[in-house]
């Protein structure tokens, strides 16, 4: 019994919480921005069927970040280079879904291996190593958080600017092209924004768990709505609850933030699946 109690208090520990809260300011801000960014871009990740590609991009982002750590350059810059290169490569080589999946599957282990090599050669703090894979938000310092927030802001503004033609191109490419939407350019713009979004997320939730913020919230929102207005709003709300909730729950313990975020995210998805109408029911309800 005592064993379980200790385990529980290791996972949830709210003693001295009042003193802790002010220290969390940076992390909470980072998670708010990350939540909005992940919730919005996730809608397009889902409509473009790119969940697997996101995972591939995040492994190369990890490799870049690890190289940044090893060579003493900025980790953020490394993550950016890695994820942009991967995103554009997947965007250019994988315009068809089959090609994209194989390109992603080829890139992913290569990225992960490269990252492990860099970490193996790195002799600095061990926490930094693990952090890149599973998240390290508490370790984020002021200048780093500023750069992450500005990158996330670029992604959010970029998405809002191309929102309509990107939605058109993502859902209905042939008609969009006939109407003069530059479908190929849209794809490259989207992959660039995705690369930036992944690079930011890798810093905070870690390369292995990026999907929980860039895919799960949007997938959950799509289970309960098909409105192009409600889906991004719900998706953003879900990502915010997961990210900020994760920070607040993790604060008291010494564990990394990521299991909290992924669990909240997962619970939201399961709930949406359970309460969301099955397809047949949705139709019967709305057509009466």
């Amino acid at each position, binding site marked *: 019994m005592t064993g379980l109690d200790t385990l529980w208090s290791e996972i949830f520990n709210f003693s001295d919480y009042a003193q802790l809260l002010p220290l969390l300011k940076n992390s909470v801000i980072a998670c708010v921005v990350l939540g909005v960014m992940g919730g919005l871009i996730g*809608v397009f990740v*889902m*409509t473009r*069927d790119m969940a697997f590609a996101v995972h591939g991009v995040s492994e190369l982002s990890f490799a870049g970040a690890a190289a940044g750590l090893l060579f003493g350059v900025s980790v953020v810059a490394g993550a950016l280079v890695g994820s942009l290169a991967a995103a554009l490569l997947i965007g250019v080589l994988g315009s068809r879904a089959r090609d994209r999946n194989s390109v992603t599957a080829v890139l992913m282990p290569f990225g992960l291996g490269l990252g492990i090599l860099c970490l193996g050669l790195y002799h600095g703090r061990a926490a930094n190593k693990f952090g890149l894979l599973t998240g390290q938000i508490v370790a984020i310092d002021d200048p780093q958080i500023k750069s992450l927030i500005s990158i996330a802001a670029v992604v959010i503004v970029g998405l*809002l*600017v*191309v*929102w*309509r*033609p990107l*939605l*058109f191109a993502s*859902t*209905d490419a*042939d*008609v*969009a*092209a*006939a*109407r*003069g*939407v530059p479908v190929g350019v849209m794809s490259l713009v989207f992959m660039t924004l995705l690369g930036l979004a992944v690079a930011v997320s890798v810093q905070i939730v870690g390369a292995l768990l990026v999907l929980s913020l860039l895919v799960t919230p949007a*997938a959950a929102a*799509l289970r309960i*709505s*098909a*409105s*192009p207005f409600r*889906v*991004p709003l719900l998706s953003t709300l879900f990502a915010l609850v997961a990210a900020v909730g994760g920070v607040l729950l993790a604060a008291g313990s010494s564990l990394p933030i990521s299991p909290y975020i992924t669990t909240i995210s997962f619970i939201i998805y399961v709930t949406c699946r359970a309460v969301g109408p099955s*397809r*047949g029911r*949705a*139709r019967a309800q*709305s*057509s009466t």
Partner: protein
Amino acid sequence: MSSAEPLLTLERAALGFGSRMLWEDLDVEVRRGELIAVLGANGSGKSSLLKVVLGQLRLRSGSARVLGTPVRRGDRRIGYIPQQRLADDGLPLRGRDLVALGVDGHRWGVPLPSRRRRQRVSQLLSSVGAEAYESVPVASLSGGEQQRLRIAQALAAEPRLLLCDEPLLSLDLPHQRLVCDLVDDARRRLDLAVLFVTHDINPILDKVDRVLYIANNRCRIGTPDEVMTSEVLSDLFDAPVDVIRHRGRILVAGVPDDQLYHHPEQVPL
């Protein structure tokens, strides 16, 4: 601009990819209010003809003009109805949203709520009898129901010329008839010119003004009575082809096997 000016003019047009020629010497003028069925074997370049008019493929030689100006991408005077069904999953679109994309989906930014767009979409939905699908997720609609929305979407920009790329594919007979009726109705109401690509002329036979038949790199254009004859098609296919008229339907028999793929209405003898 005189009212007699053709909407679409192709002159000595030829299209090919690499060393392969799809068709050449295509001369056609499409007039307003005219419905032309585009027929031909698979891979004969029917859909590619539409891509030329959309400015997505370049002619090898000759010219293609819409109301006197060379074809270009994103011409709002052209409406387009594709054959594909939309994706099944993860599609954040309801009936009205699909039509709204036709209204202003090409514009930058986030769509702000607008009474005018709302009214326009409602009007388009009722013009094709699709009011019931307004709030229904598009992914949950059948192929025929989606095609109804497609017609409203294509009419959103008030086009003068409507391009239909095998819009009947994989629809059952009642829905084939419905789609043909809706296209015909739009053409009469809005005085549209229509290019209707199809592998089977029968569902739309009673509405067709002229037929453009493409086979063996060559084309024939004329009324159904002029083109759908044993002589003309035998000459086009360079093989003995029989055209049989039976109770208002046209059956084409004897098309060479290599041109026959995927043509349910063409019966080999």
